[in-house]
C-alpha cells in the first residue's frame, strides 16, 4: 500500500512538469490500441464477404469516398464527438478519396476523385499506382455481385460509371436518405484496386489500399500489426504547421479477450489506448493509475429484453406495458449502474442530434413506461387475464457479462408481479442463430447497435428483418419507413423519425432498459487525440493516423 502511494505521489509531482510545454509533434514509435472490439479477431479480410468488422480491421489501409472531419471534433472546438458507431451527421462529413461531389440532377451524383492518391505495392500482384475511377467502379461491382451481400442494400443505385480517370458517376433509381452512408462512409465502402479481382482476397497478406498504413502482420488471437505507409497522401495541420501522416511507425490492434487482462495491459502501459472500459472498473483504474486521461461515452447500442409479439401472452400490449412498469429502470440506473447510465437512449442515440428526443419531451404514455409502477402493472395483467401471472422463457447470451447480471435482477422485479422468468443462457453463435432462425424464446435479452437514426428503426421494427427479435410487424409502420427513406428534406425526416420512435416506444415490443456509459482511457503521451472512436462505420483508422507519441514523456514516466 505504501509503495502504491509512493507511486501516486511521484506521479502527481511529475505530471504538471510534463504537461507544461506544448511540444512539436514527433514521428516514430508504436501505437498499441485496445479498440472497442478488443476481444474480436478480424472476421474476414475480403470486402466481398460483407463482414461488419471489415472497416474496423482494414479502415487504415483501405480508404473510402467520405470520412469524418476530425477538424470539427469536440476536442478541436467543433460540435462532433465522433462516437456513434456508424453515423456521421451531414456537417461532419468530408471527402477522403472524393475531392468534391455534386448532384447533376436529382438522380445523378458526380464524384470527383482526389488526384495523386497511390495504391501501395502488393508484391506479385501489383506495383504502386494511382487510384482511378475504375477502381471505385470495380469495388462497387465486387460488392454488389457478392453472394453474401445484403440484398436490398444497393437497390437505390442503377449504375456506377467512370466518366474519366478521376470522375465517378452514380445513377440512382430512387433517392435514398442513406446514400452517403451506404457507399460513402459505411461498413461496405472501402475502395480496393482492380488487381484484387482474381487473387485470394481472404488472405490478410493481400490487403491493399491507399491508406496511411499497410498490412504488417496478423497473429490470430494476439494482434494485428499495421506498418506506416511512407507515401501516404494525407496531411494534418497542427498549430498552423502541416505534417505528413501518419506519425507513428507502427500501429498494433491488440486482441485481448479477458477483461482483467485488458485493464492490466492499460495499467502497465502495454496499451496506449483502451477504448471500451466498463463503468465498474473505472474508479479503481483511476485510483491506481491516476495519470490516465479519460473520455466518457454513451454506449452505441441499446440493451433491452425483446418481447415476441407473435406469442401469447406478449401479443397483448397491456402485458408488454405491464412488464415495463414492473421493472424499476430508474433504480437500475442509480443502483446497478451507479449512475453510469441514461434512462432512455434507444432506439435513438443522443449523439444523433435533432433525431434524438429526450424522455422529458416525450408524451406521458412513453414516460410512464420508464416509471416504476408495480400496482398498475398488476392491474394491467389482471385486465389482460393474467391475474396469477405467467412463466416466460428468456434467452440471454453468456458472452455478455452485463446481460448475465441484468437477468437475475429483472427476474426479481418481475417475480413481484407474478411473472417468472425461465433463464436460458446460450453461447454467442447459438444465441444469435436462435434469432436468425426465428426459434428464439418469447423473451430475448440482447443488445443492438443504434447504427444511425433510420437504420435503428428499420432493422428492428420493419417486418421480417433479421434483427427484429420481437417479430414486430405493422404495415403502416413499414410504409412510413419506406417513405422516410425517400424523403430528401432532412427537417421532414427528423420529424418522421421522432414520430416513429415514439410509436415504437409506446407499443413496447421490448422491455426497455437503460443504456450504460462506457469509458475510454489513454496515457498522456498519446497526443493529438481526445477519445474519438470512429470517423465512419466502426472505422477508427484515420484517428490513429493522426496520433503522435510523446516519446520523451513516455520515457520520463518510466515506460519504454
Amino acid at each position, binding site marked *: 500500500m505504501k509503495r502504491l502511494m509512493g507511486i501516486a505521489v511521484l506521479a502527481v509531482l511529475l505530471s504538471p512538469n510534463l504537461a507544461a510545454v506544448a511540444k512539436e509533434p514527433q514521428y516514430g514509435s508504436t501505437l498499441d490500441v485496445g479498440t472497442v472490439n478488443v476481444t474480436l479477431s478480424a472476421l474476414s479480410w475480403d470486402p466481398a464477404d460483407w463482414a461488419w468488422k471489415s472497416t474496423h480491421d482494414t479502415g487504415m489501409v483501405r480508404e473510402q469516398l467520405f470520412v469524418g472531419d476530425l477538424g470539427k471534433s469536440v476536442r478541436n472546438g467543433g460540435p462532433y464527438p465522433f462516437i456513434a458507431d456508424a453515423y456521421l451527421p451531414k456537417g461532419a462529413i468530408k471527402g477522403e478519396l472524393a475531392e468534391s461531389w455534386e448532384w447533376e440532377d436529382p438522380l445523378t451524383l458526380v464524384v470527383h476523385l482526389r488526384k495523386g492518391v497511390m495504391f501501395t505495392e502488393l508484391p506479385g500482384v501489383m506495383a504502386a499506382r494511382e487510384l482511378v475511377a475504375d477502381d471505385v467502379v470495380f469495388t462497387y461491382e465486387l460488392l454488389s455481385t457478392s453472394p453474401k451481400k445484403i440484398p436490398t442494400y444497393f437497390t437505390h443505385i442503377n449504375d456506377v460509371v467512370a466518366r474519366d480517370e478521376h470522375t465517378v458517376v452514380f445513377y440512382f433509381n430512387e433517392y435514398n436518405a442513406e446514400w452517403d452512408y451506404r457507399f460513402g462512409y459505411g461498413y461496405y465502402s472501402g475502395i480496393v484496386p482492380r488487381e484484387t479481382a482474381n487473387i485470394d482476397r481472404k488472405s490478410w497478406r493481400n490487403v491493399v489500399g491507399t491508406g496511411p498504413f499497410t498490412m504488417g502482420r496478423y497473429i490470430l488471437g494476439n494482434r494485428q500489426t499495421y506498418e506506416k505507409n511512407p507515401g501516404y497522401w494525407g496531411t494534418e495541420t497542427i498549430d498552423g504547421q502541416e505534417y505528413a501522416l501518419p506519425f507513428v511507425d507502427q500501429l498494433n490492434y491488440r486482441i485481448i479477450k479477458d*477483461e*482483467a487482462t485488458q485493464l492490466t495491459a492499460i495499467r502497465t502501459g502495454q496499451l496506449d489506448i483502451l477504448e471500451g472500459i*466498463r463503468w*465498474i*472498473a473505472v*474508479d*479503481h483504474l483511476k485510483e491506481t493509475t491516476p495519470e490516465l486521461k479519460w473520455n466518457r461515452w454513451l454506449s452505441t447500442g441499446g440493451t433491452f429484453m425483446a418481447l415476441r409479439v407473435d406469442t401469447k401472452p406478449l401479443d397483448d400490449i397491456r402485458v408488454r406495458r405491464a412488464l415495463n412498469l414492473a421493472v*424499476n429502470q430508474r*433504480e437500475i440506473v442509480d*443502483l*446497478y449502474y451507479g449512475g453510469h447510465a441514461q434512462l432512455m437512449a434507444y432506439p435513438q442515440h443522443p449523439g444523433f442530434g435533432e433525431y434524438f428526443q429526450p424522455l422529458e419531451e416525450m408524451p406521458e404514455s412513453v414516460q410512464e413506461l420508464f416509471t416504476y409502477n408495480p400496482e398498475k402493472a398488476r392491474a394491467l395483467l389482471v385486465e389482460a387475464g393474467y391475474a396469477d401471472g405467467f412463466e416466460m422463457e428468456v434467452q440471454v447470451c*453468456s*458472452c455478455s*457479462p452485463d446481460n*448475465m*447480471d441484468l*437477468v*437475475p*435482477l429483472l*427476474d*426479481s422485479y418481475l417475480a413481484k408481479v407474478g411473472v417468472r422468468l425461465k*433463464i*436460458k*443462457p*446460450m*453461447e454467442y453463435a*447459438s444465441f444469435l442463430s436462435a434469432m436468425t432462425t426465428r426459434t428464439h424464446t418469447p423473451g430475448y435479452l440482447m443488445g443492438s447497435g443504434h447504427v444511425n437514426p433510420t437504420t435503428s428503426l428499420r432493422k428492428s421494427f420493419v417486418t421480417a428483418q433479421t434483427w427484429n427479435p420481437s417479430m414486430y410487424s405493422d404495415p403502416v409502420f413499414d410504409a412510413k419507413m419506406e417513405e422516410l427513406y425517400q424523403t430528401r428534406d432532412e427537417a421532414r425526416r427528423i420529424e418522421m423519425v421522432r414520430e416513429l420512435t415514439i410509436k415504437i416506444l409506446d407499443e413496447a415490443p421490448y422491455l426497455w432498459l437503460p443504456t450504460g456509459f462506457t469509458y475510454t482511457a489513454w496515457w498522456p503521451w498519446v497526443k493529438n487525440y481526445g477519445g474519438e472512436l470512429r470517423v465512419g462505420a466502426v472505422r477508427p483508422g484515420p484517428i490513429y493516423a493522426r496520433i503522435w507519441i510523446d516519446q520523451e514523456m513516455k520515457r520520463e514516466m518510466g515506460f519504454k
Partner: protein
Amino acid sequence: MSDITIPAPAQAPLIGGGRFAFTRRLIREKPLGAAGGAIFMLFLFCGVFADVLAPYGVNETDMFHRLEAPSLSFLMGTDHIGRDVFSRILYGAQLSMIVGFLAAGLATVVSIVLGIVSGYVGGKTDMLIQRFVDAWMTFPDLVLLIVVISIVGPGMTQIIVILGLLYGIAGSRIIRGQVVSVRENMYTHAAQSMGARTIYILWKHILPNVMPVVIILFTTRVGAVILAEAGLSFLGLGVPPPTPTWGAMLSGTGRTYMYLGPWLALAPGLCLTIVVYAINIYGDALRDLLDPRMRGSR
C-alpha cells in the same frame, strides 16, 4: 501422533464399532487427513441443511443493500444486486456436493467396470476397450463439453453426466494399469492355478488391490468435478444463473467486482479451494489406511 489412547475392545468389533475404530485410527494416525474429512463434513452439512441455515432467500435481491461489506446482518456481504453472499454460498455448497458426488460416483463406476474388464480379461476385449478409450481420450474435454452443452443446453444434469463419463473413461486406464500389474503378481497365478472362479479372484484379489487407486480416483474426481464446473463457468458454459454455483460466483461477479467488492470473489474462491483441498487430503489419508498390505501392520 495423539496422546489419547482408547482401550481396544477385547473381541472383534462389530461393524458399527469397526467404523468408530477406523475413525479413531484416522484421527490418531492421520490428523491432517482427519481435519480434511471434518472440513469436508462441515461443508456437506452446510449443503444438506442450506435451506434451514440460509438467513436470506437465494435470489432475494435488495438494491438498497448492494455491494455491502461483510457485517453481522450479511456475514459475507452482499453482491452487486443486493443478494446475501452467505446464503448463496450455502446453496452453492449444496450444488457443489450434488454435482461432485454424482459425477465422481458415475466416473468411478465407469472406471472400475472398464478397467477391470479390460485389464483382467485381456486379449481382444482389452484391445477393443483400449481403442475405444484411446479415441475417447483424444477429445479435449472442453470441446466435448462445448459441443454437448450447445446441443442439450447448459444445466446440472448435463454437466454431471458428461463429466462422469469423461473422467470415468479416462480413469479406467489407471485401474487397468493396476489390474495388469496385480494380475501378474504371483499370488493371483497361484489362485488361478488352484482353479478359483473368476468372480472370486476379482473380488478377493483384484478388487482389494485396486481399491486404493479407486479411492484416490473418487476423491480426486469429486474435487476435479467441482473445479471443472468452475472452469466451465469461466468460459460461460456452466450452470446457468441465477443458480448460485461457486464457480459462477467466482468467475462472474467475483472477477468483475474484484475491486469494488473483494468479498464477492473471496467467499466462493476460498470455499472452492478449501473444499477441494480438504477432499484431497482426506482421500490421501484414507488411502494410506485402506492399503491392504498395511492392514494389520502398525
